[in-house]
């Protein structure tokens, strides 16, 4: 937006620029807040500061060559973006992924979900003023980072999956370390709960704030924990099963309005804590049922999928992460479109920001888990 912002002629509104360079917006986001000093009339988001043309870049890369770019779509849930892209191309090619690779994919995806939720929960509490839980969760996230570094050599942008499977096999020692991590981490979630989740001040800041009813949530296209917090019981892992998820036994937490109404910020917060627990459960099942075999199917070096289009989605940490891929028989995609949960999450902010206070806006952005690179691509 390049318009010059002026307040209304009778100077009743203050137009604040919660701009791209701000300690609390997650990534490079800009909000133009119309407020009377404390209560907002509306908060208009301004996106595009992190647009890197990743969808256009896909049209210039070969199918396997685009995999590192998928890391950068969302650096916090890398395995999910990798997997969404890989499953899309595999659907077009018709390859079948070996069972060991499927279970390994689920394993690293759930580990990544835990890591992503750690950052999200830490950022929520940090934005609300409690700095310590963020550092504690980062300490735990370091262990996941170390596991991932041992596995694929990278701490943030893993580039682990390939079309047809995964790229590295897991040594037994690594599986033992993963089990040690799980033994260590499950009590830490309970400690987090006892320290900060039910803190009076946190409940006052988040309960009953920015309630998103189920119709609004579905209407604006919210996905993932945001959608489930509003009471809509939809999880792609269970309802449109893919990969090794049909073999896994897990619960899907849905918002219950524990400390307020269904769909308030506290629901969005507590659901992510519960999801971390469920991810630990899935991880233990993966560890117990890891089949032997190949880790990657045979795929040509320069795959030429037949002409066609496919939409393939996975349940990322921020919800349904979808890839819409059109191929025209050449080694490079014709069109690749990403459908991410953060974009919908951002679009609802203007709708629910009426009547909130600026302090609540920060809580809303944090609990909706808006990540700028996923939004702008």
């Amino acid at each position, binding site marked *: 937006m390049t318009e010059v912002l002026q307040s209304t002629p009778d100077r009743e509104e203050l137009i604040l620029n919660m701009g791209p360079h701000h300690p609390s917006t997650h990534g490079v986001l800009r909000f133009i807040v119309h407020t009377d000093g404390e209560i907002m009339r509306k908060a208009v988001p301004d996106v595009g500061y992190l647009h890197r043309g990743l969808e256009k870049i896909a049209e210039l890369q070969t199918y396997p060559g685009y995999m590192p770019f998928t890391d950068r779509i969302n650096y916090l849930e890398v395995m999910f973006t990798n997997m969404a892209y890989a499953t899309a191309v595999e659907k077009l090619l018709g390859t079948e992924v070996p069972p060991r690779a499927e279970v390994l994919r689920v394993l690293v995806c759930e580990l990544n979900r835990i890591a992503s939720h750690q950052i999200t929960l830490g950022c929520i509490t940090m934005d609300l003023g409690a700095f310590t839980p963020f550092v504690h969760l980062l300490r735990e996230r370091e262990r996941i980072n170390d596991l991932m570094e041992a596995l694929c050599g990278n701490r943030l942008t893993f580039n682990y999956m390939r079309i047809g499977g995964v790229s590295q096999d897991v040594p037994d020692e690594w599986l033992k370390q993963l089990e040690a991590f799980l033994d260590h981490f499950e009590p830490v979630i309970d400690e987090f709960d006892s320290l900060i989740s039910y803190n009076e001040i946190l409940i006052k*800041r988040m309960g009953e704030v920015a309630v998103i009813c189920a119709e609004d949530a579905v209407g604006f296209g919210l996905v993932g924990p945001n959608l489930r917090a509003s009471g809509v019981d939809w999880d792609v892992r269970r309802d449109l099963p893919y990969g090794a998820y049909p073999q896994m036994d897990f619960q899907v937490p849905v918002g219950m309005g524990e400390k307020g109404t269904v769909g308030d910020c506290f629901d969005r917060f507590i659901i992510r804590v519960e999801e971390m627990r469920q991810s630990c459960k899935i991880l233990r099942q993966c560890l117990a049922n890891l089949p032997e075999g190949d880790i990657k199917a045979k795929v040509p070096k320069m795959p030429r999928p037949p002409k066609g289009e496919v939409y393939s989605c996975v349940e990322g940490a921020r919800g349904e992460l979808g890839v819409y891929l059109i191929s025209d028989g050449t080694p490079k995609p014709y069109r690749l479109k990403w459908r991410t949960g953060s974009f919908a999450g951002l679009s609802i902010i203007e709708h629910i920001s009426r009547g909130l206070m600026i302090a609540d806006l920060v809580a809303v952005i944090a609990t909706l888990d808006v990540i700028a690179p996923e939004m702008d691509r």
Partner: protein
Amino acid sequence: METLSNYIADYLELSGLAREILYAVLIVAVAAGVFMVALTISGLLTLAERRVAGRIQSRVGPNRVGPLGLLQWLADGLKLIMKEDLVPAAADGPLFRLAPYLVIVGVFAAFVSVPFGQLLIAADLNVGVIYLLAITSLVTVGVLMSGWASNNKWSLLGGIRAAAQIVSYEVPAVLAVLSVVLLSGTLSMQGIIAAQGGWPWHWYLFHNPFTFLAFFLYFTAAVAEGNRTPFDLPEAESELVSGYNTEYSGMRFAGFFLGEFANIYLMSAIATTLFFGGWQIPGVTPEQQATSWGLQLVGLLIFVAKASIGCFVVIWLRWTFPRLRVDQLMSVCYRYLVPLSLLCLAANAVYMLLIPAGSMIDRIIHYGTAAFGGLVGLIFLWRVFHHIRSVGDRLDLNVLARGQKGRFDPRIQARRYGKFRKKRYSKETG
């Protein structure tokens, strides 16, 4: 101060003008000394905050500059002095420059009547309590001025909110203090301490249940006045980028910062004086203390220890709690604290009317409240240990921690931390 001056003058056998000059020199020395002490205290508090924050967040905190990081605050001060002195073009020049001075003067001038020891008070004003609470109100003016003069919407909002907060929370703070003044019958700080005793059941904290309540009211209101979390909305980084001191940099910012930390110590010192018996040593009367330098020193150490524990609690609160929203903040003040503190004051007055001081029932109430307070403390400690054990962790009181030495599994760890790093590189590459 006069007694000290007379004592030295008699020793040196001076008279007339020389006595006056000696007195003047002594006063100047004492005032400068108090200011330096206050500056050092607030500098050390910034370091203490960072160390305590580090330990709470399971990391170390600054430990490089000087032994255990004790010179970190000097390094910070030096760095801030060397920064560019930037005044925004659109800012209101004189007001922008004046605001930090008001904050510094307002807070440091209050140290003149903080009773560090029985004879260690720069000026034992007979209106000590009023003076303390009044001179710290200069901070409000300074904060408001900085918000307005910065000519920045964020600063303006922050400054107004800060001023509204500080000013509102003065009411319950003063009302809680007045409960103590009721009991002691004097406004002078040394007088209030002298009316207490060394043992905990002589303290005003455990005088009766209403003063016990008054302490918590005062402490809450003082933390809110000092703009500390959970009441630190005016300087909330994640919301208003730093509120009223957004545009300040370098030494001007240091003025605000030092003022805030000196304020923390000040409010702890006031709480110690009013509620915890100040420099009184258990089992020693003030007359005995007046005659011996050793006991004076012990009194000073006791006062500093009590005030430091108060500071530790304030720092602990900051790194544990989220912050309150501004409307919740104001509602806590006017709906809960003000009526409660009025009630507390009235109840204390009724107590004083009904129960004669020093009688048997008075002493029973002292012991009873002290026992109750002790019980509360023990329950708190038990809960802390219980939570630590239930997570499967152990208590780590290693405040001098130097960081973990490779506690992670080296087969998974790709690096080591801290001072082992160099060795590893030279082994690998060299």
